[in-house]
């Protein structure tokens, strides 16, 4: 599982785009071979920090697509600032990635 993230500043507005690799199982799908339900496995919490301060915090359910894409905008960033994106899923998995604003 990995995170791809890009942050680009234009004028005063910084656009963050992120792509997270994650199965995002709803827990409702059935395994075609066994007929058993595939256990839920999805990201519940996504946080994005700009120079250590929260700019966006998302709560997700199983209805967010597999390998989720996320984009948002905020102001007050300049090139070289640090953007850190982290997520946590319902099975205790998590990941964090930091990038510099371009």
């Amino acid at each position, binding site marked *: 599982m990995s995170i791809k993230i890009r942050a680009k500043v234009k004028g005063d507005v910084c656009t963050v785009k992120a792509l997270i690799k994650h199965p995002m199982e709803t827990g409702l799908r059935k395994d075609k071979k066994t007929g058993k339900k595939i256990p839920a496995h999805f990201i519940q919490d996504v946080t994005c920090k700009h120079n250590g301060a929260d700019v966006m915090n998302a709560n997700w359910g199983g209805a967010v697509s597999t390998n989720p894409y996320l984009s948002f*905008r905020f102001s007050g960033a300049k090139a070289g600032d640090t953007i850190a994106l982290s997520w*946590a899923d319902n099975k205790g998995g998590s990941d964090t990635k930091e990038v510099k604003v371009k």
Partner: protein
Amino acid sequence: MNMKRRVFLKSTLAGSAVAVAVGAGLVAPRQVLAAWPKSAFEAKTVQDAMKGIFGSDLSEASGDIKIKAPDIAENGAVVPVTISTGMKAESIAIIVEKNGTPLAATFNLAANTEGYVSTRIKMGKTSDVIAVVKSGGKTYSARKEVKVTIGGCGG
């Protein structure tokens, strides 16, 4: 002799596949994050989901919320949705009216974050996508119908 070996192999293979599936289900830890609004995400109706996040199911229809989503989504498993608003948004929620659990995602935005989020969601069938924006202690909403030709929930 040969026939028996074939049968034996088949039965053991099938048996182990089931065991792996059951094992995976049991091992999965039921961890619940404190911040994650479980009741809202497990709610079966739009009203209950709204109450779970915003404390009320009332919202004012607003023309200042734009939902960018396809009119017809060929694949319900990946429906790109972009919500934007000119309001000073504190939080934005994306709700799919006819999904089994309508609430898809909520975004809490900081003071310097714009009223703009874009993501991709799953849709079980043709439904209205509802965007709810909380601004200045009030909730506003807008909706857009997305026709789904192949559902994205369930096998």
